[in-house]
């Protein structure tokens, strides 16, 4: 009984801090319709600021908390809204997720720079004080956490329900323009919401680190946000009371799991995965969304190249790799091969996110499935890589099936949940076939040739990239590609045409996962040794960010994205500059949804740039194509032939 009580109290305390974090998330989402992936990272950075003030600068604990929660964090939130969020406020879910991903990755980078790894520990509030419930001791810190959660809930509920400002904050979601016509100030509402949201993140972060008395950690606090997502999803991102109940249930589940579940490896993984499972359940159990009628949110998509252009580009890439092999140092050749493996992974996002508009944060998990297969079979046969791609496709189907009804943000969150579950329950779990540490791998053996040298491997990866890239372009040009674009633009219109959106969706997830799995298999061979830490969900955030910024609608964008991802991993010193470029590019996505490559393509078709020799047959071909469209029906065949001849 005492044990039960102990775990119940623990559950309430955990739930209380989740509730504070989740209510901040709900507040920003409910008022600006932007889901803040960086909520946990904000909590992490603010906890570090608290540590800096209280333990490095020697201010009192209480003064530091007040400074962080009421000054630093709100200021940060308001500035973030002013300079970043406002610029992408009207963009689609993909863009807003990517931009907040950029903030998240940037915050982690900043924290690592400002507070280099070392001992950053904090003590409890009211240390040594507490009350006894029967035989169970409840610390002062625990009481403070619970009390603050209740206070936060009451204040927020009051604000949003009873004050005119709060009602205006909610009105801004419905119709910003109309709110302005009412005399409200939509931007001020949004800034206020973000200020409050980051203050709540800061409070939750400080409470979580002081309760554990553990060292501050860049990643674990950032990832705690998944628990907040789960709680917020219980309130469908809008209802505060339901969010609090969700947080409480999640806290109790966590506490009882740590108290009563078996302690074998398999169950430890399960316990860690509870928030993610909870999140997935909440998403799947949500009421069915209606089919969305299309709306124009930026025209994404670049013209697909002709066969000749694909051949030339492929030859150019292979030639570049050959030259690279000749001039680069051994380390850099390895990096080039790594970049090409990442490019194949990035390519997996092109049909999924670029064509179909689905945002997935599980790509590194599919990549990991491919790598795991190669590592586990410990084989050098191409069948191992192939099997990896097939198993990844199965994983893709597993992601797609439960989330068939989910759209946009909710789909993206379900992929996060899946990635977390896979990471905890499979990748980290040798008893369920996972890595458990790291595994040695062998290089590929193809028709008797062993790709032992990095140079040969780079050529192999380039060739695979070209083949898969051509297949992706072929897909886009064909009937299936048109179906994917149509489904992205207007699922409702597709349904009236008699299309089955589910089948297309499952297929595109399976195909994308297979490409990622293929890349993962090659990656495993290249690295000689792979472990679960290579494939955490966390890696998928920069991947999405980089590929979308580079240009998720084109194969060239995937190549650029893969190389950038490699640079990010291989040159830690360059990280701040890369993030700066990416942040700028992410904000620019509101204007150019095709990313950096889209911008480059546009530049090439610009009259001046074209005259400078950057132009191509593309312009002439587009004129011919438009002539074919405009020509009367009866002569269209002839004109079409002419157009081909001209091209």
């Amino acid at each position, binding site marked *: 009984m005492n044990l039960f009580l102990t775990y119940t109290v623990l559950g309430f305390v955990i739930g209380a801090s989740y509730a504070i974090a989740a209510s901040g998330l709900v507040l920003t989402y409910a008022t600006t319709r932007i889901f803040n992936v960086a909520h946990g990272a904000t909590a992490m950075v603010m906890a570090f600021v608290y540590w800096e003030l209280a333990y490095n600068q020697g201010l009192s604990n209480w003064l530091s908390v007040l400074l962080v929660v009421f000054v630093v964090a709100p200021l940060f939130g308001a500035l973030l809204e002013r300079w970043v969020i406002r610029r992408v406020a009207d963009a689609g879910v993909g863009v807003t997720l990517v931009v907040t991903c950029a903030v998240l990755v940037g915050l982690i980078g900043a924290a690592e720079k400002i507070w280099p790894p070392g001992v950053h520990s904090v003590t409890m509030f009211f240390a040594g004080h507490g009350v006894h419930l029967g035989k169970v001791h409840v610390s002062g810190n625990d009481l403070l956490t619970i009390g603050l959660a209740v206070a936060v809930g009451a204040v927020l509920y009051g604000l949003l329900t009873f004050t*005119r400002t709060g*009602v*205006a904050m*909610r009105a801004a979601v*419905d119709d910003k323009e109309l*709110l302005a*016509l*009412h*005399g409200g100030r*939509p931007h001020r509402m949004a800034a206020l919401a973000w200020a409050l949201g980051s203050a709540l993140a800061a409070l939750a972060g400080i409470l979580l680190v002081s309760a554990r008395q553990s060292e501050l950690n860049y990643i674990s606090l950032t990832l705690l946000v998944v628990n907040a997502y789960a709680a917020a999803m219980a309130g469908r991102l809008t209802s505060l009371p339901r969010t609090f109940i969700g947080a409480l249930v999640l806290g109790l589940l966590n506490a009882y799991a740590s108290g009563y579940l078996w302690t074998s490896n398999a169950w430890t993984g399960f316990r860690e995965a509870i928030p993610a499972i909870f999140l997935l359940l909440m998403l799947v159990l949500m009421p069915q969304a209606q089919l969305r009628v299309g709306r124009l949110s930026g025209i994404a998509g670049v013209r697909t190249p002709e066969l000749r252009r694909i051949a030339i580009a492929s030859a150019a890439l292979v030639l570049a790799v050959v030259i690279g092999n000749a001039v680069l140092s051994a380390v850099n050749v390895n990096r080039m091969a790594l970049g090409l493996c990442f490019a194949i992974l990035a390519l997996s996002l092109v049909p999924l996110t670029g064509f179909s508009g689905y945002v997935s944060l599980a790509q590194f998990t599919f990549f990991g499935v491919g790598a795991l297969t190669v590592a586990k079979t410990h084989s050098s046969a191409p069948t191992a890589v192939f099997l990896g791609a097939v198993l990844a496709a199965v994983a893709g189907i597993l992601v797609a099936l439960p989330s068939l009804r989910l759209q946009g943000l909710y789909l993206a969150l379900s992929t996060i949940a899946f990635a977390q579950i896979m990471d905890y329950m499979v990748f980290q779990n040798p008893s369920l076939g996972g890595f458990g540490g790291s595994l040695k791998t062998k290089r590929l053996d193809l028709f008797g040739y062993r790709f032992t040298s990095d140079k040969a491997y780079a050529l192999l990866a380039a060739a695979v990239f070209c083949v898969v890239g051509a297949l992706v372009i072929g897909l886009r040009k064909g009937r299936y590609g048109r179906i994917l674009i149509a489904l992205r633009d207007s699922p409702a219109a597709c349904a009236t045409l008699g299309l089955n959106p589910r089948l297309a969706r499952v297929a595109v997830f399976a195909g994308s996962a297979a490409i990622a799995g293929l890349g993962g298999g090659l990656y495993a061979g290249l690295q000689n040794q792979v472990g679960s830490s290579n494939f955490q969900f966390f890696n998928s955030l920069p991947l999405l960010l980089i590929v979308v910024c580079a240009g998720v609608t084109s194969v060239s964008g995937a190549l650029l994205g893969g190389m950038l991802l490699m640079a990010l991993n291989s040159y830690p010193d360059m990280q701040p500059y890369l993030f700066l470029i990416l942040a700028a590019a992410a904000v620019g996505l509101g204007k150019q949804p095709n990313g950096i490559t889209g911008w480059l393509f546009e530049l090439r078709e610009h009259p001046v740039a074209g005259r400078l020799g950057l132009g191509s047959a593309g312009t002439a071909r587009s004129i011919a194509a438009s002539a074919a469209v405009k020509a009367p029906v009866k002569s269209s065949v002839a004109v079409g032939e002419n157009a081909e001849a001209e091209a």
Partner: protein
Amino acid sequence: MAPILELQDVHAAYGRIEVLHGVDLAVPRGAVVALLGPNGAGKSTLMKVCSGRLRATSGHVHLGGSHVNDAAPDALARAGLCMIPEGRGIFPNLTVAENLRLSGLAGRATTAQIYETAFTRFPRLAERYDQLAGSMSGGEQQMLAMARALVSDPAVLLVDELSMGLAPLIVRQLYEVLAQIAEQGVTVVAVEQFADTALAVADFAAVMTHGRVVAFDEPAAVRRDLAELYLGGATV
């Protein structure tokens, strides 16, 4: 008397497509002006320019003697310009009561005063007090939108297509409210495609075709020439 709302040679465009090609319009203080014209004449665009939602590319907009070309919509609202946009000017995911409370953002009325004014004029809204505004019928939603004009006590009221998609009986009711608001001394500009209802309450009528105001006169005179103005404009 000096006009309270005055437009001089106003041009406005959506991207590269110019919609208003030099609008001149002077709305006398306290008058009810019906702004008529066929589809695509630029009436709604003109309303957008007046309420600050679309910036004029050239020309001048004066409100109460001040130059307001660059004013933000919320600043204009607080300065006493109430705009009820096309469609339903309400927040569908807020309750009726919450919608009404937001009507006080631009004025000085307290919540209690707002409820009293609105519910006296529209008892139906009192019944729907706690209901989400989006779940009401079109007529009720438009009543809620009109209630804002009633309670925020503006100097100028701009109404875009009050009758859109509503039954004639409800339209008549809404125009009665409009007349009542005008009696309080509020200047009203009402955009309508269907002339008769609007002309019945108007002091003046302006006719727009092809992005210009082509006539501004007494309702009777405009009614007489309406067919010619519409068709004459259309043959240009």
